[in-house]
């Protein structure tokens, strides 16, 4: 049994389980699935700075902080007890392309050749971690949600603005991965 769990889970197992998070949160306490709001709650808790956008009763939204704390602990548990013993099966075309830029370590889920404390103050590392993080945080709030809030919860409830947001997420991702990232990796 543990052997099966240790294998990477296929999409048709993982996807439906992720989808079940939607009714789980609704039935547990009438909560709409969404993760990026946690970033807003952290701002409201720590540095509201009298900004109206951060003036609300964040204590009511504490459940969301417990949820993301759970995700963090889930990461610890998965890495400590359920880690996949075999290396990840990647598309050879991706491996070939990334090797051009010196990305050859595929042992972790993050590209350690780019994302590590050593690389933080290199130009590509800084753009990826600091710049990328900023875009994620700014963009998700500007769009009113992320992949969980718009792509999963929003589409599940047939919200057409969420479809617009999801299409834009994908367009942005395509542009970055195919046309901008190669230049960043060459720096």
């Amino acid at each position: 049994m543990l052997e099966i769990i240790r294998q990477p889970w296929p999409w048709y197992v993982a996807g439906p389980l992720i989808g079940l998070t939607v009714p789980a949160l609704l039935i547990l306490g009438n909560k709409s699935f969404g993760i990026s709001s946690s970033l807003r709650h952290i701002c409201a808790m720590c540095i509201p700075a009298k900004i109206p956008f951060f003036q609300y009763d964040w204590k009511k939204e504490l459940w969301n902080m417990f949820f993301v704390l759970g995700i963090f602990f889930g990461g610890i548990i998965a890495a400590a007890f359920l880690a996949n013993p075999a290396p990840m099966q990647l598309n050879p075309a991706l491996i070939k392309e990334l090797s051009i830029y010196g990305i050859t370590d595929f042992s972790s889920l993050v590209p350690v050749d780019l994302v590590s404390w050593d690389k933080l103050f290199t130009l590509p590392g800084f753009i990826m971690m600091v710049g990328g993080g900023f875009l994620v945080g700014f963009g998700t709030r500007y769009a009113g949600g992320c992949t969980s809030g718009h792509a999963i919860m929003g589409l599940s409830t047939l919200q057409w603005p969420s479809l617009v947001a999801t299409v834009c997420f994908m367009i942005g991702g395509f542009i970055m991965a195919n046309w901008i990232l190669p230049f960043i990796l060459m720096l």
Partner: protein
Amino acid sequence: MKDQLEIIMNESQRQPKWYHNLKYLMVGLFFGVLFVKAEVISWFRIQEMFRLQTFHMYGIIGSAVVVGMISVWLIKRFRITTISGEQITFTDKKFNKGQIYGGLMFGLGWGLTGACPGPLFAQIGIGATVVIVTLISAIAGTWVYGRFKDHLPH
């Protein structure tokens, strides 16, 4: 005095005790394991997705949406309530241009970091501690949005 007491009681009824939130911690825990085991938090899988080199991520997002849709339909159809008997409510999202501009920005960030907000927490959990920097930067991005919200086209 009596009024005050009543207010306090109402407050505590409206705001459940902190430990009621532990159930969300458990859902999150399950979700974090799922993220890692399905390799959703893998930068490489996200790159494969945006290069159309794998069906994996499309299968995950697509099947998650289908299961979510069916669940929401069932909840509405059979008027399923929460475990405490409360009626489940849905709020309609209003369209604004932020979903386009912000969506594109988020997409660029997603393609760069290979992570949306949820995976950031899980990546830190698996021991990629440097992702704390990405998370702090994402919080900073959220803050800057909040600060300049009124000056942005919506």
